C-alpha cells in the first residue's frame, strides 16, 4: 500500500513538474476574460510602465502575422518598463475550441486575454474614438507620462519598434 502511495506521489510530482515546465500548458491556463474596466485599471496601476495593447483575433490574418513581432518587442525590451498585452476579440463561444489551441500552437509568451465586452457601439469608442473597429489595432499607454496613442493599422517589426521607441 505504501509503495502504491509513493508511486502515486511520484506520478503527481512528475505531472506537476511537466505542467510547470511546459510553457504551452501554463500559457493556456493563463488565458482570461478581460473587461475594458479591468484593462483600464491595469493600465492605470502600471504607472510608469508603457503598455502596448494589441487587439487581435485568431481569424484575422494580418493580426496573426504580426503577433511574433509583439513577442519579439517584449523579449527585446524586457529590461525596460514595457508590457505587451494581447487582447483577443474572438467570439467568446470559440475560446475553448479555437483561441486556447491557437495560443498553445504559437507558444505565445505575452499575456493573452479575451475581451469580455458585448456592446461594440460602446467599447470601440472607449478604446479610441478614431477606431472604426477594423483589426488589427494597437493602443500604447503610459499613465505617468499621460501618453495614449492608438493605431488602426498593421505593423512590421521595424515600424513597431520605431513607434515604441519614439514614445520616449
Amino acid at each position, binding site marked *: 500500500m505504501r509503495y502504491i502511495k509513493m508511486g502515486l506521489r511520484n506520478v503527481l510530482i512528475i505531472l506537476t513538474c511537466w505542467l510547470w515546465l511546459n510553457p504551452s500548458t501554463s500559457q493556456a491556463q493563463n488565458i482570461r476574460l478581460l473587461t475594458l474596466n479591468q484593462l483600464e485599471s491595469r493600465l492605470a496601476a502600471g504607472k510608469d510602465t508603457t503598455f502596448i495593447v494589441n487587439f487581435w*483575433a485568431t*481569424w*484575422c*490574418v*494580418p493580426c496573426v502575422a504580426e503577433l511574433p513581432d509583439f513577442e519579439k518587442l517584449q523579449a527585446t525590451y524586457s529590461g525596460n518598463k514595457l508590457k505587451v498585452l494581447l487582447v483577443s*476579440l474572438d*467570439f467568446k*463561444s470559440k475560446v475553448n475550441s479555437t483561441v486556447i489551441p491557437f495560443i498553445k500552437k504559437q507558444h505565445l509568451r505575452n499575456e493573452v486575454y479575451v475581451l469580455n465586452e458585448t*456592446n*461594440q*457601439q460602446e467599447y*470601440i*469608442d472607449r478604446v479610441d474614438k*478614431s*477606431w*472604426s*473597429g*477594423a*483589426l*488589427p489595432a494597437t493602443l500604447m499607454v503610459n499613465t505617468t507620462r499621460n501618453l495614449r*496613442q492608438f*493605431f*488602426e*493599422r*498593421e505593423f512590421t517589426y521595424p*515600424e513597431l519598434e*520605431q*513607434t515604441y*521607441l*519614439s514614445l520616449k
Partner: protein
Amino acid sequence: MKWYLITCFIALAAFAKAQGGYKVGDAVADFSLKNVDNKTVAMADYPAAKGFIVIFTCNTCPVAQAYESRIIALHNKYAPKGYPVIAINPNDPNTQPGDSFSEMQKRAKTKGYSFAYLEDTGNQVADRFGATRTPHVYIISKEDGKSVIQYIGAIDNDTENANPDKITYAEQAVDALLNGKKPAITFTKAVGCSIKRSRG
C-alpha cells in the same frame, strides 16, 4: 528628429484614413465596377431603385462570412422594395489570394448571390467611401437626383447571430427610408477585418 517626423507622418496618415471618406448626408458619386458576370455595374444601371444597400465585403473575412446569409436575406427582402444590395470586394488579391476575381465568381455561384458582387481593383471606391473593414455598410437613398448616404456601419449588433433581441441597424434604416423618414440610428461601429489595401 527623423523618427519623430516619420512617426508624425504615420500618425497623420492614420488620422487622414480614419477621417476620410463619405459622411452621412453626403452625396455619392457613381462608380462603375466589374461584376462577377463580367459586366460592368453602376448605380445608374438601377433607374427604378429608390436607393442602395452598398456593402464592402469579401470572400475570406470570417466576419463577412458570418454575415453572408444576412446579406443575401437583406437583398431578398429589400430589392423588391427598391433597395437592392450592391456588394463590393475591395481586397487586394495579391495580399489575399482568396479574394481574387475568379474566387469571387466561385463564391457568388456556390452561395447563389442574386445581387451584384463587384471587384474594386485598387480599392478606389473603398477609399472614396472611406470604408475600413469588411463588412462595412453604406445605405444610400435617391434624393432630388442625388444619391445621398443615410446610414454607415454594421448590419446588426450580433456578429455571432445568437441573440434574438439583436438590433438590426441596416433593416431599421431601410424601413425608415421606405416610410419616408430618416433612420433613427445613422452611424454604428463594428469589429471587422481591415480592408487589404493594394500597396501598388
